[in-house]
């Protein structure tokens, strides 16, 4: 689109933010454009003559710039390439730099010709909540037709798919006073608080302080507002106790005055990024006192087709002119219901922009600024409203407005006057920005004078000043800000420093506002006339009225049914207008209707900022055993077990993972294997009441365990479900060593502590985690003893002297060791523990000693197959938090003698012993080479399509090289009574696998091999 000269000439002396001597070249949708240093994408694109900057969400209507800053709802762009891409940025906030590549969103194939516009043609079928009524039939279309279509159509921007190469930072600070918002109120507050010596932080989302000071009238301390702002800024720099953050949005207020603020450090300057600065910085702030000076946002007026490019907020129009010397058009009109619209008219007129009419809904306009406008020769038309607009074909640019007389309660428009224009600056009044105030429970009340909600009570040390508090008078704003700073400082106590001088303000006061929630339209009501309320989600006045008619009357229902206020702008410009429509439709007053809940964040901020440095290697700590390097050198595949890295298998040259696993299993069954079991939880339990404690936490008896003996223990939760298991050894009368699962180690220590400190407080026993203090290995296989016998030791390892499930202490290969005859593989097995510092030394000694026996390191997968061949359960595979000891066939482990232990009473509940509970069984597939997938569902009857009644699932499934066939364990309803029955597993893709229910012990049911 070729543009007319919308950049005001230098003679107009406008453009406070731009530097005309530095031209910047950027691209918008691939088209090369130029701007000046200081421009935003919005101002440069507008100056270049392009009006259409986006397509609306639902109807794909062409949209232009509407807002002033972060509340902008339609000019949403994506900036950056590859992993740096960020979508849904508001063009009004994106500062230009050389080479910036901006792309518009939600259009295909391009912005000027978007096939999505077809939605606008069919808008009659797409009102609010249409998807609750459509896409119902036929059902077969849900997955293959509707869902892909909706997924493609939904959403606005496109997220990056590559890894983000930039760094992000987080800072923690404690401040005395946090001032949110650097407009004149906030600056006055910071001035007062800092002068009294308090540590102050002032944050503003814009690149410069001042808020709307540069586009408002009135003097402070005899100087222009911008001069006063600059002087205060300079003071803050030198004061040493006032930290100013710009480009920083305070996104949320949380408990106990905790605040998050997102700083955009490098988005505006790629050079900074190249120098290694973090792209965004998240400030985590604890403030003694918070002063909210977040300002107010202008709201639009709902008239027919009020979304056309060229129609924008009046404050945005004058900001374009004042800050960027960009004219919103060649010839425009102002539409207003309050005095601020006149300020825009005058500013535009003074800059040389043609304003052909000021349309005011108020019948009487007596104030000084209206007179000033009239005196400047501007045409003021009172008691009138815009009834409609005319546009170029395709609705890409307005060409005229239609004006009709207006009075409250007037319905259809009959007489109208057509006025040429190419922009409309709308001012419907101002809404205090109350979001942050409400995040942690601040209350609001409706103020009839400003026709909006303003802050009321709050329980936290937080206050609100300025236009955020509903004061639009400059004097009131500055004075309230200053007083707030003084109050905050005083509330914190301490010695008061010399106070600053209160600023003196001179300003005109404004006239009253007349609310107008709906401007009647030309012609048949609503036929083709959309009165937009929420511009980002395309919610019209008709949608809100529909919601009322359909019974979604609560404001919470209306919001969700129509999606009013649910877009990325979170209703900043639509909430109040929406309430006005609902109020007109239902006859209820706005305060009766109420608002929906404001939640953080105020504006979107990046996941990068949220993650900070906790990415990549720093995401989670990695825990390694003393043997880690050896595993790595052997080319181990890693399995994460909690934060630990364990070797899954050790593929040798030419081996697949399955080859390696099979080799390792067979080595343990036929020769000897060595496993690093250091990650298993180890807890020392010591004290006169150690035995009592164990009896309480395990299902079986441990007080009867003899010193030097080991016993497998089961642990339940208080609900009677299996929680952990492991072998516990009695080292002495008052000394036990408990083993837990690798994943359970830390949890079980905390569990034991909790019971000792909160329930059985009289027990005299300490529990200490020693998981990391000991390396522990399992040497397992028929040759295990042969290998150990080669090492120098003072322990008698013979079968007669050292029985299965017992313990010895001594030295092995020169290292101090605890040796347990425990077997998880079902083979002859010794678990050997040595202090971790000796771990690697002992491991190397064992590997060397076993060389001639063919000692083979085996990993966690081989371990799991070995135990499955023996029918041993794994907590977390065979259990899922709802499985009892009876379910897995371990009733023998549930003591009938003990009067009390954790989970006992719950286990006795009738339904936990009921018929039809899933029980642990083994499965032998009818095709022995077929390995069932983990988690496969067993069904009662196989049907051609779901639903089918499920009767259980596979909990573990492997190929057993020992048995040369697949094995699996499963939980099947009434499984114990179904031995020999065939059960079916329909798999994805249509195949059904059959298996015979068997005992879960596939090998050596008598347990002879571990007992040699």
């Amino acid at each position: 689109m070729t543009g007319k000269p919308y950049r005001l000439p230098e003679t107009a002396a406008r453009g406070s933010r731009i530097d005309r001597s530095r031209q910047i070249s950027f691209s918008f949708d691939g088209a090369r454009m130029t701007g000046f240093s200081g421009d935003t994408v919005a101002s440069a694109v507008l100056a270049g003559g392009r009006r259409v900057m986006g397509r609306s969400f639902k109807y794909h209507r062409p949209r232009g710039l509407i807002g002033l800053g972060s509340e902008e709802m339609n000019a949403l762009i994506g900036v950056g390439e590859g992993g740096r891409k960020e979508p849904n940025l508001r063009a009004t906030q994106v500062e230009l730099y050389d080479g910036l590549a901006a792309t518009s969103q939600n259009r295909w194939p391009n912005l000027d010709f978007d096939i999505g516009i077809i939605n606008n043609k069919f808008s009659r079928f797409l009102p609010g909540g249409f998807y609750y009524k459509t896409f119902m039939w036929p059902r077969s279309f849900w997955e293959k037709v509707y869902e892909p279509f909706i997924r493609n159509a939904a959403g606005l921007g496109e997220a990056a798919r590559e890894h983000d190469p930039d760094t992000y930072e987080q800072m923690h600070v404690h401040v005395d006073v946090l001032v949110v918002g650097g407009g004149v109120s906030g600056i006055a507050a910071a001035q007062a608080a800092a002068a009294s010596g308090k540590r102050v932080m002032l944050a503003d989302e814009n690149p410069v302080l001042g808020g709307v000071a540069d586009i408002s009238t009135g003097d402070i301390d005899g100087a222009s507002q911008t001069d006063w702002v600059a002087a205060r800024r300079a003071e803050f720099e030198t004061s040493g106790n006032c930290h100013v953050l710009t480009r920083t949005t305070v996104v949320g207020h949380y408990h106990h005055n905790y605040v998050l603020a997102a700083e955009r450090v490098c988005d505006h300057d790629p050079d900074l990024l190249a120098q290694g600065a973090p792209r965004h910085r998240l400030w985590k702030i604890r403030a003694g006192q918070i002063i909210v000076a977040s300002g107010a946002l202008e709201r639009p007026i709902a008239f027919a087709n009020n979304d056309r490019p060229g129609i924008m907020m009046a404050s945005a129009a004058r900001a374009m002119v004042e800050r960027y010397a960009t004219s919103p058009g060649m010839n425009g009109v102002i539409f207003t219901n309050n005095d601020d619209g006149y300020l825009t008219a005058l500013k535009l007129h003074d800059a040389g922009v043609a304003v052909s009419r000021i349309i005011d809904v108020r019948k009487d306009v007596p104030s000084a600024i209206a007179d000033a406008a009239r005196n400047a020769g501007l045409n003021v038309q009172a008691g009138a409203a815009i009834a409609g607009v005319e546009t170029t074909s395709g609705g890409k640019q307005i060409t005229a407005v239609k004006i009709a007389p207006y009075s409250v309660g007037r319905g259809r428009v009959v007489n109208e006057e057509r006025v040429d224009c190419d922009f409309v600056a709308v001012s419907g009044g101002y809404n205090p920005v109350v979001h942050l105030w409400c995040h942690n429970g601040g209350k609001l009340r409706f103020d009839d004078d400003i026709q909006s909600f303003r802050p009321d009570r709050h329980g936290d040390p937080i206050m609100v000043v300025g236009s955020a508090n509903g004061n639009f008078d400059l004097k009131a704003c500055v004075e309230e800000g200053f007083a707030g700073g003084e109050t905050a400082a005083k509330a914190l106590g301490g010695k008061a420093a010399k106070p600053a001088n209160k600023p003196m303000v001179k300003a005109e006061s404004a006239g009253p506002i007349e609310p107008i929630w709906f401007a009647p339209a030309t012609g048949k009501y609503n036929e083709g006339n959309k009165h937009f309320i929420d511009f980002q989600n395309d919610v019209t006045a008709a949608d809100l009225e529909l919601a009322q008619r359909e019974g979604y009357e609560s404001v919470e229902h209306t919001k969700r049914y129509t999606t009013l206020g649910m877009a990325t702008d979170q209703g900043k410009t639509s909430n109040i207008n929406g309430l006005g429509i609902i109020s007109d439709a239902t006859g209820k007053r706005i305060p009766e209707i109420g608002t929906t809940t404001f939640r953080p964040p105020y504006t979107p901020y990046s996941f990068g900022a949220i993650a900070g440095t906790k990415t990549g290697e720093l995401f989670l700590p990695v825990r390694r055993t003393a043997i880690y390097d050896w595993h790595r050198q052997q080319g181990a595949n890693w399995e994460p077990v909690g934060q630990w890295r364990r070797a899954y298998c050790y593929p040798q040259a030419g081996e697949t993972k399955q080859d390696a696993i099979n080799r390792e299993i067979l080595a343990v069954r036929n020769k000897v294997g060595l496993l690093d079991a250091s990650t298993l939880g180890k807890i020392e339990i010591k004290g006169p009441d150690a035995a009592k404690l164990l009896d309480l936490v395990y299902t079986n008896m441990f007080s009867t365990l003899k010193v030097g003996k080991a016993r497998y223990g089961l642990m339940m939760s208080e609900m009677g479900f299996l929680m952990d298991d492991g072998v516990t050894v009695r080292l002495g009368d008052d000394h036990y060593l408990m083993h837990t699962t690798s994943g359970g180690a830390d949890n079980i220590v905390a569990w034991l502590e909790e019971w000792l400190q909160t329930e059985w407080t009289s027990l005299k026993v300490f529990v200490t985690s020693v998981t990391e203090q000991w390396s522990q290995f399992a040497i397992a296989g028929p040759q295990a003893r042969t290998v150990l016998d080669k090492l120098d030791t003072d322990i008698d390892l013979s079968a007669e002297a050292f029985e299965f499930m017992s313990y010895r202490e001594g030295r092995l290969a020169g290292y101090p060791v605890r040796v347990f005859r425990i077997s998880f593989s079902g083979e002859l097995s010794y678990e050997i523990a040595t202090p971790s510092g000796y771990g690697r030394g002992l491991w190397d000694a064992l590997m060397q000693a076993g060389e001639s026996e063919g000692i083979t390191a085996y990993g966690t997968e081989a371990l799991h197959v070995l135990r499955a061949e023996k029918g041993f359960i794994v907590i977390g595979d065979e259990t899922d938090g709802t499985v009892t000891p009876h379910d897995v066939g371990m009733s023998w482990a549930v003591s009938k003698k003990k009067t009390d232990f954790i989970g006992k009473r719950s286990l006795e509940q009738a339904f936990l012993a009921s018929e039809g509970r899933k029980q642990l069984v083994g499965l032998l597939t009818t095709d022995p080479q077929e390995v069932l997938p983990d988690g496969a569902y067993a069904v009662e009857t196989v049907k051609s399509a779901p639903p089918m009644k499920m009767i259980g699932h596979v909990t573990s499934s492997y190929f057993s090289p020992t048995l040369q066939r697949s094995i699996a364990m499963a939980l099947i309803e009434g499984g114990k009574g179904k031995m020999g029955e065939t059960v079916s597993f329909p798999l994805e893709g249509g195949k059904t696998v059959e298996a015979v229910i068997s005992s879960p012990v596939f090998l050596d049911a008598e347990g002879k091999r571990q007992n040699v």
Partner: protein
Amino acid sequence: MLIIQCPVCGAEGDETDFHCGGQAHIARPATSDPDNIADGEQRDYLFMRFNPKGLHFERWRCDRGCGKWFHAARDTVSLDFKAYYGITELPPADVMKQATGQWADFFKKATAGKPAVKEAAAKKIGAKATAARKTVPAKAKKS
């Protein structure tokens, strides 16, 4: 992000340094009379909890600090902590009096006749913790 203070070691930290253990003062039926527990009693012990709009009493653990469990009285509306007290204690009398609804009934029963556990003496929040803080550096110096 609550700020919590441990009454045992005196450490003050973000709630992420602590672990919330849910409702306080729940009696475990099996501890006192394991052979005589109705299904309903066990069910209530496992699942039924108070949900007051106002003063609530909770168990917390000083996870990243001393590792000790303690009790806290906290207002669920204002989120203010009103008192911290020991894991074997009942709340300070003045705080207990402010309890309403189910908590008020509970404390009435708990303090009726001879109290099973000692009430914590009414103190200002932080006084014990401040005292605890003062002793910590001294101990550190000795070692």
